[in-house]
């Protein structure tokens, strides 16, 4: 199905048995760690609503974090791993230039769900990638309303890694002039932001 996110998995064959002095699988293991890690992309909005990301060009909400600017909250739903000790790497790449606009790495915990998977708690912002998007002084196109390649990778304590990527459209909330302004190409830090900015729609990459 074209709509599915691309998933690549790298599997290390060592270190899967857990600690010898701990009988049985650790409490945080979900699925079968002898199998490749499976994952799908998630995004979260400011209201703790989690949305799976399967369909290319999905609008992903930008939001204002505690320290200002505009971020995406993105993460993974995964299984066949220990969800209590993961390093999460998130990034946004401009498919028009192949440049990486922003990268973030952080330790996260994924909590087991009833269906045998694990995902970040909806109300815990620190367990999600806080991917800084706007402003970005290196951007050559608008940062919102346009398509960018979102990549999310996890690395487990045992060294196994997995990643998924999908083209998404970072999107300001309707009427959020501050977001629209900071996410414009050419925004200079401290610029006065006019009201009534239009969000625009995704366009093809400019001819080089």
């Amino acid at each position, binding site marked *: 199905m074209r709509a599915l996110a691309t998933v690549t998995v790298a599997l290390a064959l060592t270190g899967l048995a857990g600690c010898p002095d701990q009988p049985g699988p650790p409490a945080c293991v979900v699925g079968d760690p002898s199998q490749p890690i499976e994952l799908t992309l998630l995004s979260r909005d400011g209201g703790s609503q989690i949305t799976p990301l399967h369909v290319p060009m999905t609008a992903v909400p930008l939001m204002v*974090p505690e320290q200002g600017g505009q971020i995406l909250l993105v993460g993974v739903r995964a299984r066949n791993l220990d969800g209590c000790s993961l390093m999460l790497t998130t990034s946004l790449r401009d498919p028009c230039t192949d440049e990486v606009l*922003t990268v973030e*790495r952080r*330790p996260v915990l994924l909590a087991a769900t009833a269906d045998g998977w694990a995902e970040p708690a909806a109300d815990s912002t620190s367990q999600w990638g806080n991917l800084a998007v706007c402003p970005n002084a290196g951007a050559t196109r608008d940062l919102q309303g346009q398509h960018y390649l979102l990549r999310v990778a996890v690395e487990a304590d045992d060294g196994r890694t997995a990643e998924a990527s999908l083209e998404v459209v970072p999107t300001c909330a309707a009427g959020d002039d501050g977001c629209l302004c*900071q996410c414009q190409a050419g925004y200079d830090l401290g610029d006065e932001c006019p009201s009534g900015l239009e969000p625009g729609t995704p366009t093809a990459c400019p001819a080089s």
Partner: protein
Amino acid sequence: MRLAPLGLAVALVACSDPSPPFEPWNLEVLGPDQGFSLRVPPFEVPAGHESQNCYFVRVPDLHAGADVLVDEVKTAINPGSHHMNVFRVKTLVGLRPEDGAPIKLGDLDATVIYGADDYAHNPCWQSSNWADWPLVANSQHANPDDPYTDWKLPTDVVIRFTPGEMLMVQTHYVNTTDQPTEYGANVGINFYRHQGAGPTQDMGTLFATQQSIRVCRSNPSVTYSGTCRFPNPVTIIAANGHFHKRGRQFDMFAWDGTSEDPPAEAARFYRSSAWDDPPMAIDLAVTPPARGGIWWDCAYQWTAPTVVTCDDVDAKDPDHAGDCCYTFGGNTDVGEHCNVFLYYYPRVESDVFCN
């Protein structure tokens, strides 16, 4: 051995000998031909408390309305200072100059909002209030043996001010056992005018901050990383990193802007292992790849709070995990930071903020 007791006694005397008295700093007051001086009036910080104040002052007109070009910044800061930052005031959100009390910063009229240690409510502690205020300069250096930082910019590189533009000087003092303010709070800043007549290049600044950090008792060793890109090819000339008591290592690297993997060690240009006196690298000449930027790593080791209790730390945790988790916040005993202060040239279009 008859000499041994004497040697022991000498050693004990030496160990109990108080440190030499602090020599008050002395910073020349600049005339209009030399630049301009800011002097924060001395104040006391009660033991066991912190103090963050926001002072607003306008750049003076030194020469018939012409831009003020500065090529040297010198600070003198009494020990106990956690940071002193200067920003250009832009969008006003919750921190407004007109809400401050009148005060003098040396000869210049100013206003001040006293944040005291009300980190939960006072607007001087809420960093979203200055998210689009470009950084001008900062110092985290307030050593009792050497309270000065003398930062000379490279030849013909200048900080450009417009007469009348509003600056915010933010002081943060800590008076605890691990960062004592024994001699009172006192901050002086001199901005020295560029004296050359030839062409100059403007200095740009980069301020970056990591969102939603979390350092917990049950997961005590954690590292957070981020990136920030420049708008044009630049030379990095100075940098310093900022974290709090759990901070163990702050690294900055040149980043190529194309890779999602951490840069190689050879690309590292800054390291700090001291949360309470981080080095200010002022003689850098780092040129990241074109279309590149910087990558930083903030590594932490959980330790128990030294002034408050884990109950206080837990009360601030938005996740209410009960795991003594330090989260983003200005108070050094309760919160953590991962902030980059960096200076480069040329500034072409914009200063840089990465959240």
